[in-house]
Structures are given as C-alpha cells and as structure tokens.
C-alpha cells in the first residue's frame, strides 16, 4: 500500500510559546480508516485543520501523495470535509448543497445531476433533494454533510467529530453507516473523535492523542490488549491500575512489588530494569474470583466492598494490593451468588493479562 498522507515532525503553536501539537509523525496508507482519538484540547482537531489547510504548521510539513501541501490553499486541496456542525448551507436545498462543489468545479449540469443523485442514494436520502437543511432531522443533516463531502469523489475524507451532535442510538447507527460508505467508496478516511467506543468500531488504526502528542498508534485490538502507555491503558476501555516497583526482570516478563504483594506482569519497555517505577494494568474482565482448588499465575487475597448487578455481568469492587477501587467483572453465569459483600476471596489473573507500563 502506498502512503497517502504523511505528517513529518509537525508542530503548531497559536500564541508562539505553547505548542498545541508537538512533533507529530504519522503515515497514513491509501484507503485506511484512521481515527485521531483523544480528550478535548489534545490537538487532534488542530491536526485535522492543518491537513485541511485552515491552519498552517509552525514546524514540520504535511505531505499528500509525497508532495508538501504547505503552499496549497484549502480550496485547492480537494479533500472532503465533514464538520461537527455539518456546515450545510442553510439558504440552499439539499440538492444545491451537493451540487455546490460540482458547480465550482465547472462540471456540466447533466453530469452534476447524476453525481448528486448517486450521492443521495449512497446516504439513502433519495427524494430529499428539494428540502432545505432545516427541514431535516439531525441524522439526515449528517447524511447530507457526508454526501456533500463525497459527491465530487475526493480521495481523502476528513471528519471532525461528525456524530457529536446526535443522540446515542442514532450515533451507533451512523457509525456503521460511515464504515459502510467508506468501504463502498474506498476513500482514505481521517476521523476525529473523543469517543473511544466510536473509534474502536470504525477504525483500521487509532492514533491516541494526549497533550499534543500521539501516545500510541495501533489497531483497536492492539490498543485494547497491548497498551504501551498508562494514558492509553486508562483511556481505552476500563483498566485497574496498581502502582509498584520492578524487582526482577526476565525475558518479556517482570516481577513487580505492589504494596508488598508480588505480581508477575508482561513487561512492556525493553529497557526495564529493577527499581523502575511502573503501573501494572489489568482489565476488569480478566480478573477471576478463584474457587479454592484453582490457581493462576497471579493470585491475591481481596475483600469484596460492593457488588453491582449490571445485567450480563456483575461488577465487583474489591480491596486488594492496597487499591480499594479494584474492579472485577464476573460473567453472569450460574453460581455467581456465592460472592457476598464483605467476603474475603481469592482473585487471580494470567501473567499476560497484566502489563507493567513505565511511568515517565
């Protein structure tokens, strides 16, 4: 696969001394669905706006198809952009909105109508062409915005929190819709969101942003299973965190002392050495409450502080290894009634299910 978009050492500062975005390096292959994920203010939208041409980098450069777009004004970049506010033109009908990019490109009427019809069909809004944007529901406006960004067949589509204004159910529906359209059209998609669930569902790869830097860039499953940064570990899904000190380093494994308890963990940084401060992360669903005759590589005593019935699982709050907020998710299967509030139980998890992440 060829590289479509590349960020090289890109930095951006609005006031001249604090960098909103710092030293971003990113290579996006053609046809990929890449999500820039992070809390608000982490620099993800700024990156998108620099790519779109509405902001220019303070340092570094952005390349599209191997060529710097530094001197290309926004209207010549020819990317499809979907804004959080949709930015539909309120004085034009839906069809006129879609025809706009074709008109400014001087495409003749017959071809224009054909493309508009096709785009409306793609987002399942046939017959809505004569409506004004304010006569449409939020979800329909969203579809129009997507259709408009695709109608002139750009190779790169940028979306800035496009589902932020929709309610939950519609948002989930639109996620699959966006993914379907992206696969159908085959464009490279760069998608900005702060919703990790959305990012997991949609993306080929996710770049997790924090404070202007990319903390980890990987496929959703890798981010979830193998986070290599404490921020990523807590931002993607839920994670128990135990702070400790490395006592022994083995091959890809290490031993960590947490509040006097010994834990075997997968070792993330290669240069880990005894004495390093680390945080050990364990997914709540990987923690088991052990029957007396079972044992796992990591086994600890714990006190049950509370039990919440969620439906498909029980959420058990435990006090263990000096952490009174340790969560275990126990599948809702026969026999769960055996755990009661106040019980002293044995819990355990596999070595490879917990990772020792270096604290900087």
């Amino acid at each position, binding site marked *: 696969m060829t590289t479509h978009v590349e960020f090289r050492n890109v930095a951006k500062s609005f006031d001249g001394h604090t960098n909103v975005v710092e030293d971003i390096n990113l290579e996006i292959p053609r046809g990929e669905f890449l999500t820039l994920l992070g809390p608000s203010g982490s620099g993800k939208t700024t990156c998108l706006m620099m790519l*779109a*041409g*509405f902001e220019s980098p303070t340092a570094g450069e952005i390349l599209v198809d191997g060529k710097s777009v530094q001197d290309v*004004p*926004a*209207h*010549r*970049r*020819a*990317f*499809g*952009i979907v*804004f*959080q*506010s949709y*930015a*539909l*033109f*309120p*004085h034009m009908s839906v069809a006129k909105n879609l025809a*706009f*990019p074709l008109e*400014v*490109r001087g495409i003749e009427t017959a071809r224009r109508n054909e493309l508009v019809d096709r785009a409306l069909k793609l987002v399942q809004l046939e017959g809505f062409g004569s409506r004004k944007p304010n006569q449409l529901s939020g979800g329909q406006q969203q579809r129009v915005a997507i259709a*408009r*960004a695709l109608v*002139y067949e750009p190779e790169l589509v940028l979306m800035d929190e496009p589902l932020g204004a929709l309610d939950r159910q519609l948002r989930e529906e639109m996620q699959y819709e966006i993914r379907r359209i992206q696969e159908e059209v085959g464009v490279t998609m760069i998608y900005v969101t702060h919703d990790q669930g959305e990012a997991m569902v949609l993306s080929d790869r996710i770049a997790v942003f924090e404070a202007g830097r990319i903390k980890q860039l990987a496929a959703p499953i890798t981010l979830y299973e193998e986070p290599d940064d404490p921020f990523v570990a807590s931002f993607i899904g839920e994670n128990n965190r135990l702070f400790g000190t490395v006592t022994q380093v083995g091959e890809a494994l290490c031993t960590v002392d947490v509040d006097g308890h010994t834990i075997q963990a997968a070792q993330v940084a290669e240069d880990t050495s005894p004495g390093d401060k680390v945080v050990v992360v364990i997914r709540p669903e990987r923690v088991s409450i052990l029957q007396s005759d079972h044992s796992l590589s990591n086994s600890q005593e714990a006190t049950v502080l509370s039990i919440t019935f969620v439906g498909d699982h029980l959420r058990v709050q435990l006090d263990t290894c000096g952490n009174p907020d340790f969560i275990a998710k126990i599948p809702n299967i026969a026999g769960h009634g055996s755990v009661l509030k106040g019980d002293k139980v044995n819990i355990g998890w596999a070595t490879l299910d917990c990772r020792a992440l270096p604290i900087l």
Partner: protein
Amino acid sequence: MGKLKASSLALPLIAFVVVTLLVPIFSLVRLSVYDSTVAEALPKTAEVLQAWSGTELPSIEVYETLAEELIAAQETRELGRVASRVNRILSGSRSTISKTPRRFARTDAPDAREEFIEIDEDWGELAIWHALRQATDTFTSRNFLQAVDFRLMPDGSIERMPESQQVYVTLFIRTLGVSIAVTALCFLIGYPMAYAMAHASSGWARILLVLVLIPFWTSLLVRTTSWIVILQQQGVLNDIFVFLGIVADDNRLTMVHNMTGTLVAMTQVLLPFMILPLYSVMTNIPRDLTKAASSLGANPFQAFVRVYFPNSLPGVAAGGLLVFILSIGYYITPALVGGSKGQLISNLIAYHLQTSLNWGLAAALSVILLVGVIVLYVVYDRFIGIDRMKLG
C-alpha cells in the same frame, strides 16, 4: 386567566403606544382632509351657500347673513383665520374679507350687496363666493392635491399648479433619490466595516464597536455642524486638497450647502443603523460555512458571493430598510448642510408647520410619506419576510 394576567402587564405599554403614536397619526390624517374653521365661524353662511346656484351673485339676504357673521367673527378674533383659509383658495381675498366687517354699515349704500361691493368690488365677482363656499366644506382634497402639485380651483375643478409653483413632486423624487443614495452609500461603507468587526479578534471587535457607537453619544447637531467645518470652502478638507495641490486655491470645491453636503452628512449620521444589524447577523453566521465552502473547492470570492453574502442578506435588508426609512424623513441634517439644493420633503413639512402655518398641507405631505413607508414595509414583508429581519 394566566394569559390574561400576563397580557395585562402590557397594558401600560399599549396605552402609551395608543396615546403617543396612534392618536397623533389619526389626528394627522384628519388634519390633512378636515378643516372646520370657516364652517364653524360662519355657520349660517355655510348653510345658505350650499343652496347657492353658483352662476350669479347670491341674494341680498346672503350678503346680510355674511356681514352679521363676519362682524361676530371679528369680535371672537376668528376673522384672521377665516380670511387666511379663503386666501389659500383665492389669493388676494384675505384683505377683502378682513376689511369688510370693519367698514360695514358705514356707507350709504341701499342694501347689503351694494355696500359689500362698495367696500371691495371683488364682492361683485363670483370667484370670491366660490372660494368662500369651498372654504366652508369641512372635508377637502385641497391639501393632497397641492401636495402632488395640483390645485383645486374656486369653481371646484382640478388643474396643475403653474410650473413655477410645482415644488412637491420634485421634492418627493429628490427625497427618494437621496434616500436610495444614502442607503447605498451606507451599505457600501457599512458592509466591509461590519465584516471587519464580526471577524476581528474580540479585543479589536470591541474597539471597532465603540468607534461605531461614539457618534450615537454625540449630539446630532454637533456632528452635523462639524461637517460644515470640514466641508466648507475654507474648511479642513479643502485646505488639505489645496495643500496637496489637488485643487487650486482660487477654485476650492463647494461641498456643503448643496447635495454633496446632505449626502455626506446623512451617510455618516445613519451609518451605525446599517452597521449594527449587519454586525449582529454576521456574528451569527457560522464560521464553518465559509470553511466548508472552501473545502468544497470554492475560492475565497466564490465562497463569499455564494455562501457568505446570501447568509448576511437578512442584515442587509434590515439595515437597508432602517436607513432608508430614517433618511426619507430626515430633517436636521439637510436643513443645516443642505442649502437650497439639498432640502428634502421634511424640511418643507417643517416650514409649513412652523412658518406658513398651513398645517393641513404639512399633514397631507406627512401622510403621503407615511403611506410610502408602509408600502415599502409591506413589499419588504411580501418578498423577504419581516420575520427574517434581524436588528441585533
């Protein structure tokens, strides 16, 4: 019940509007078509004149009745007003009427008719009787006819004013032209200014807003007279032009006490009324719209013409309507800097109210102006929709 209570809170305001707006407008309209001065001062004469044939002089009894009532009017000091009303219909009749009761019964004429004719031979003509009969009509179209340069002749026929007296139509057209020009100038200057304000950083926007508002805090009279200082022949602007060598010292430009002065000063005075609605509309146009347009391939010019400008139209319409309506009735500025060529219809309305005391004509001119504005408003509502207007 709750609704009733709520709307009763608005009662004082409604009463205020009725007293200060509807009542004056109603009495204005009434004044333009209704005048009972003569009919009240000479009630019996008015009655008998309605039965008069109009082809020959009235009977001696009518002369006697008139004499009696003119004397009574002289005692109640109504005579002057009666005389000036009749004089408006037939010029020259003022002195005829006012001297008659003074001299009546002091001649040795055989009857009242002879005596009248002896006092002034006009009394032997039909014209003054026609004028008198017309003056006793309480409802009259005379004011409106005069307001559009026609006149009601004493015999009831309508004809155009002599050319030298045709002033009002010209003035209405001039007022319309000036209003359109001022509105256009305000738009041309105000639109970029409002745009700059709406797109400046918040600090700059505040400074610009204050600059726009400062004229509001300054007396209109001061602003207008300072234009005289700037524009007059020995004024600041001419001095600069001469200094720069653009005009010769003995050929200084005349920029005030003419149409130029009126246009310049009115545009400056009315500019905020264009800028403020525009600014308010522009700040509400999402920035994303222009960004979206350029992301879709529109160059800055296309993005402005096809996306930004159409969305700013409610502000253009609101500002335009406001400036146009204000300038159509503008008075102080043209009076001070307009000279004779820069006078507008309001200046004549003021003249008839204050100097000639022809309130009926002033009222008729005002009613025409009011109807014009209402028509404009209805047309605006029809084509743009008054609910789309944003004043800020």
